């Protein structure tokens, strides 16, 4: 166990479906990987793609984005808008070199506690296989400047 890489995963979830679903997973005492930290937002429509980049900037190895199934959005269409944005961002991100396996998108409703546990376990396994995200761009020194004596 101690030799295993334990990834840090940040989950951005919507208040109405996935957060409640995750709550259900907890109250149902389902076992799942302890690697995920949840950040609750009103709607997937509120999840800016910059949240995903920010999570990686601050050292996350993986990200989960989850909300209401299509037709279930508390605000009618937030998830439809989000779906388009994520679809484009995911392909752009892949083109820029972020392995899409590091970012899991899912729909988890308030009654799908079991599905949430599955999403968490799958994402954790997937990111564990990829290893720590050390290659994410860092604030290294500029190429042309005179280096410090050290």
């Amino acid at each position, binding site marked *: 166990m101690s030799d295993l890489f334990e990834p840090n995963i940040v989950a951005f979830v919507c208040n109405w479906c996935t957060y409640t679903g995750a709550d259900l997973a907890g109250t149902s005492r389902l076992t799942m990987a302890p690697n995920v930290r949840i950040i609750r937002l009103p709607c997937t429509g509120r999840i*800016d793609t910059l949240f995903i980049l920010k999570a990686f900037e601050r050292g996350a190895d993986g990200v989960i984005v989850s909300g209401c199934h299509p037709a279930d959005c508390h605000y009618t269409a937030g998830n439809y*808008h989000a779906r388009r944005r994520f679809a484009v961002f995911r392909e752009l991100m892949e083109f820029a070199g972020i392995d899409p396996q590091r970012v899991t998108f899912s729909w988890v409703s308030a009654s799908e506690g079991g599905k949430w546990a599955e999403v968490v376990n799958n994402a954790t396994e997937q990111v564990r296989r990829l290893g720590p995200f050390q290659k994410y761009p860092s604030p290294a020194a500029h190429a042309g400047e005179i280096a410090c004596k050290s």
Partner: protein
Amino acid sequence: MQELRDLAKKLLLDKQVNAILGYEWDRRGARPAFITEAGDCDRLVFDHRCVQNLAAYLSPRRANIAQLGRLAVVIKACDARAVAGLIRENQLKREDLVLIGVRCGGVVVNPSDSEQLNAENIAPRCVGCEQREPTLADHLVGETQSAPVGKANRDLRLSEIEKLNPEERLSLWTSLLSQCTRCYACRQVCPMCFCERCIADKTQPAWIESSPHSRGNFSWHLTRALHLAGRCVDCGECERACPAGIPLGLLNHKVARIVASRYGYAVSDDPSRETPIGSYRLDDEQEFIA
């Protein structure tokens, strides 16, 4: 050329507009010209060296240009797509502008480039461009042009990058973007980057780090490309303006291909056409969502 000058003169003399925004020669090729006197209209020119997208000057936030009053603008087909974008996004009213469309057979990369347009020096974005003249125009001037021919192939470059593995792609972009010093020339010359306060300039919280290190630059350029999804008019100004020589057009071209393949969308100069981000269909593909 005379046709353009006569039209401009007439528009000014008839008081249809207060100023003409077009092109003129300077020491180093073509540059934007702001003409307010009919007598100065003979300075106006147009040829393949008039590469700038003048729609960038039409943002209502350019206070010193708004002061000129009602404008007539010289636009190529690609520039017209930007004007349409500004109208679509409620930045401009169609009736507040006179649009002088110019027929275009492609442009060079830099306004100081050669007097001859050929397959070697043509801007890569013009290769394959199917629009010789804007449909969104009040007047159309210039001779009929043939479709531009060129050797550049942006799709080939894209597929070369796509063939790399994720780690190789990440180090390629990290190295390319590490050259960025955040002069924001890419943003300022972009006709579609008109936000009152850019996300990159916000400090509370600082969503995009303003430091020009690889981490901040990665976040900025990915976000810039995404915010232009379905909005980029492919005028190539960002890449031309970049003093660090970063191939920004590749990111925009990639995003344009994504929205084309997923949502069948191609940017147009029809202001009534809905853009792919900001609209949706109930049955949009969602193969990536578990």
